[in-house]
């Protein structure tokens, strides 16, 4: 009897622990984002919008200013105006937006064009409906005192890049300078931090202008006691080398898009998202506030730098925001073919500008500047740790 009482208590305690452990997992991250949106859409259920369409967007990475336009569209009510109830799901190291969208867990996703082409070839008919980033933000950086002045000097060195679909710009650049990636250079897969570069374990590392570059510039140089400066670095720009590939674009599946109701949703989603990005061009600091509300890992200073750099990728958009430039598409597709991302040439069926063009026309008609020809970047001062 004594025995049984203790067994019962132990089992009850374990059960309670298990139940407690399982509880908060799902609702916590989504709850804060979902509730204000619901409140807003209930308030703004105005003319004609009785039942907003529920839509999910899968981001390519964790919440940060790289996705400010979408957060702005949500916070400033642009999605509500289009009668859309948008859930924005952050990404992460092992989340592949193509898989999430293809599996039907999200309606729209953000990814880089080479991955989309690869997914299409693997039998997943994804389609790009809006190419927001017009320029590549990826750079390969080296220390000025390493003697590397440009890509040609990478021969015989230890060169790092993340791999996972973003190495092809570097590989194309090496090929351009006659460097064999198998024999003439030691390629290293780098982790998602800049420690390898800061510790000089590698001679050159990959960095996004809006993220890792800032992380380096937010670190104190132990020799001088001050932050590292841009003058300490050699920044190799793939856009200038003609080996850049297109990055963040909005995509969905061909199957989802074949439904006329969804086509209407796509156009509205693009209109509101573009409006969000335009808002972030004209009000970058407010957009930084929107991003900070999402609880990103890196603080305000870093997000401000990121917002500014991302704006540089979008503006000016000579054809209007989100409209795919066929020549840039072809450049990306050719590099993808040359480096084994895809084995057959990509067809231009991989993208459609129809909905983006409609969205841009509607915005232009409403007097909104969709090209940003006169936009000037801010000057952002970095502080240690990006505060």
């Amino acid at each position, binding site marked *: 009897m004594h025995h049984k009482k203790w067994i019962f208590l132990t089992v009850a305690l374990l059960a309670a622990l298990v139940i407690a452990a399982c509880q908060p997992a799902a609702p916590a991250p989504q709850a804060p984002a979902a509730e204000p949106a619901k409140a807003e859409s209930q308030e703004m259920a105005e003319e004609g919008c009785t039942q907003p369409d529920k839509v999910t967007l899968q981001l390519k990475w964790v919440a940060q200013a790289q996705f400010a336009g979408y957060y702005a569209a949500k916070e400033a009510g642009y999605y509500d105006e289009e009668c859309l109830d948008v859930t924005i799901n952050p990404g992460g190291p092992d989340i*592949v937006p193509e*898989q999430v969208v293809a599996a039907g867990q999200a309606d729209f996703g953000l990814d880089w064009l*080479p*991955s989309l082409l*690869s997914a299409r070839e693997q039998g997943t008919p994804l389609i790009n409906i809006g190419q927001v980033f017009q320029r590549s933000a990826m750079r390969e950086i080296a220390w000025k005192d390493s003697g590397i002045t440009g890509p040609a000097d990478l021969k015989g060195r230890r060169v*790092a890049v993340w*791999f996972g679909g973003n190495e092809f710009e570097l590989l194309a650049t090496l090929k351009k300078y006659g460097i064999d990636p198998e024999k003439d250079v030691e390629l290293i897969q780098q982790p998602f931090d800049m420690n*390898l570069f800061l*510790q000089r374990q*590698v001679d050159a590392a990959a960095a996004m202008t809006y993220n890792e570059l800032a992380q380096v510039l937010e670190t104190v140089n132990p020799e001088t006691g001050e932050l590292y400066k841009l003058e300490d670095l050699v920044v190799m720009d793939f856009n200038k080398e003609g080996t850049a590939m297109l990055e963040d674009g909005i995509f969905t599946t061909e199957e989802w898009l074949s439904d006329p109701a969804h086509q209407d949703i796509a156009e509205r989603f693009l209109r509101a998202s573009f409006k969000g990005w335009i808002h972030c061009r004209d009000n970058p600091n407010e957009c930084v506030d929107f991003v900070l509300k999402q609880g990103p890992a890196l603080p305000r200073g870093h997000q401000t730098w990121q917002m500014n750099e991302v704006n540089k990728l979008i503006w000016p958009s000579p054809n209007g925001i989100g409209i795919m430039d066929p020549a840039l598409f072809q450049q990306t597709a050719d590099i993808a073919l040359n480096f084994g991302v895809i084995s057959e040439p990509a067809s231009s069926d991989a993208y459609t500008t129809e909905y983006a063009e409609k969205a841009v026309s509607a915005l232009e008609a409403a007097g909104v500047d969709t090209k940003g020809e006169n936009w000037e970047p801010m000057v952002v001062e970095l502080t240690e740790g990006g505060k």
Partner: protein
Amino acid sequence: MTHSVTTLPEELEELEPEGLGASIAHWLRRYFPSILVFILVTAFWEGVVRLFNINVFLLPAPHAIFQEFASNYATLLEYGMNTFREALGGFAVGCSLGVLVAVIAIRWHMLADLLLPVAVASNSIPIIAFAPLAIVWFGIDAGSKIAIVALMCFFPTMISTFRGLTSLPPGALDLMRSYAAPEKDIFLKLRAPAALPYVFNALKLSSTLSMIGAIVAEFFGGSVKLLGVYIKTEASILHTTQAWAAIIVACLLGILFYLAISFVERLVMPWHVSFREVGHE
């Protein structure tokens, strides 16, 4: 031992190897069920993929994987051997340390109280948290991978060796002490042989862990000529067939490592009961 030593019992006579043919037949009989299961699972996998038209990025078909392996085996094996070298290095470091710590803990009891909690804590370190630190401390090359594998192999080996060194036949220790046997003799003649089965258990476990550990460590960065980096790279551009071909190579190397340890075990402990039993399967 119940058999007489003058004549071999019938069962043992039947098992006398009569040459290569008999050995192969014997080996086949032992492993036929597992080979059959393997073939059935592969056929089932192929069937499911074809029947449900499963997209290649979710689950590639076995025939595609074997084709990929056949056309790319040189590269895959080269990368595999690079990874295996790290696994072996980590295995050697981790298991030696494990045995050493266990021996020290037995010999000097006071150190046991010091070392054992630290060893238990070491086992609780999440690899995901440790890997980036390992890269900073030991470098992005083999150093960090060996460190991670060593960490994974250390604890099972230490705890098994400790158990083995203390699992003595009842009365044997008292007998040795009654002979005033020095500690060294007690260790070499009593504890060490008793511990060998436990140590080899841990080594077999560590052999499979080491390959896994090396690949997981490589997920955090490293030279491109490594299996883990290759798997991660191919998987993230949705080349799942290539990733699976590399996974097959990793499994093969892990199994071969395990079999190698088993073979060494058989050489070192031919007297052990598991190799002597008749009709043991």
